[in-house]
């Protein structure tokens, strides 16, 4: 597969290491009520959609950036590639 890196353009997916669903960005608050259950849901439960999937890829053999790739799991068509850091910030993550 080819991942169109937002900074570097098209790169072979072989240069990347796959992690999984981009929901792994949304790490729960450790101090909230029922944190253990929240972390369980966060770490173990997956939507695993047949269709558009937002997922994390690490450009290990490239610029070492984490990307959020929107890819169709039925066709492998990639419709969007973003820097994970920007996505994380847009989802309200900071320090």
């Amino acid at each position, binding site marked *: 597969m080819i991942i169109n890196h937002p*900074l*570097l*353009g098209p790169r*072979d997916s*072989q*240069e990347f290491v796959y992690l999984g669903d981009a929901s792994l960005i949304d790490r729960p608050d450790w101090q909230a009520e029922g944190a253990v259950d929240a972390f369980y849901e966060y770490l173990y439960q997956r939507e695993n959609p047949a269709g558009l999937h937002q997922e994390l890829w690490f450009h*290990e*053999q*490239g*610029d*070492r*950036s984490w990307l959020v790739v929107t890819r169709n799991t039925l066709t492998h068509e990639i419709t969007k590639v973003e*820097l994970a*850091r920007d996505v994380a910030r847009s989802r309200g993550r900071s320090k």
Partner: protein
Amino acid sequence: MADHRLKPITQLGGDTPRKDSFPGLTISERTDTALASLSARQGKPAQFQATAKAFFGFDLPGAGRVATGGVYTAIWTGQDQWFIEAPFASHEDIAPILKKGFGDTASITEQTDGWGGFDLQGQGCITTLEILCNLDLGKMAADSASRTVIEHLGCILICRETGQHYTVYGGRSSAASLHHALVTAARSAL
């Protein structure tokens, strides 16, 4: 009393750099370059850019690019991160030198011996490299650089002159394997 002078060896373990020649290509071990990584810290990009411009005399290059001026060459290696090349003879202490210039606007790490470099020169460069890495060499312009994989080794490929001169940096500990891959490919392709 300390009286043991330390004798350096090259990444291939020799006393002097190694050179291999093929029809249309020479592969030479690169040992005279000091390297450091330069990473901008958050919060003060303008100040960092200004400092860089003042220090190097040129703007730091953007994604995939290389910029040279005076003794320094800057290679983009990642978001807000560059590798800085300088002559080893004058800049063995490259990290402190940069630190002095950038203060707390940047994080600097010595990389000189983290990498082992090889220069490929001659018109045989592309036919050799195309059986080694997946970069679109035909489109790779002079003064551009990219990380790539060569026989399972993470490398940085720098195009100094399109079709004629490239530098491959690989992890120093695997320099012998990288050299083996380059030489084998040259023999096969040329």
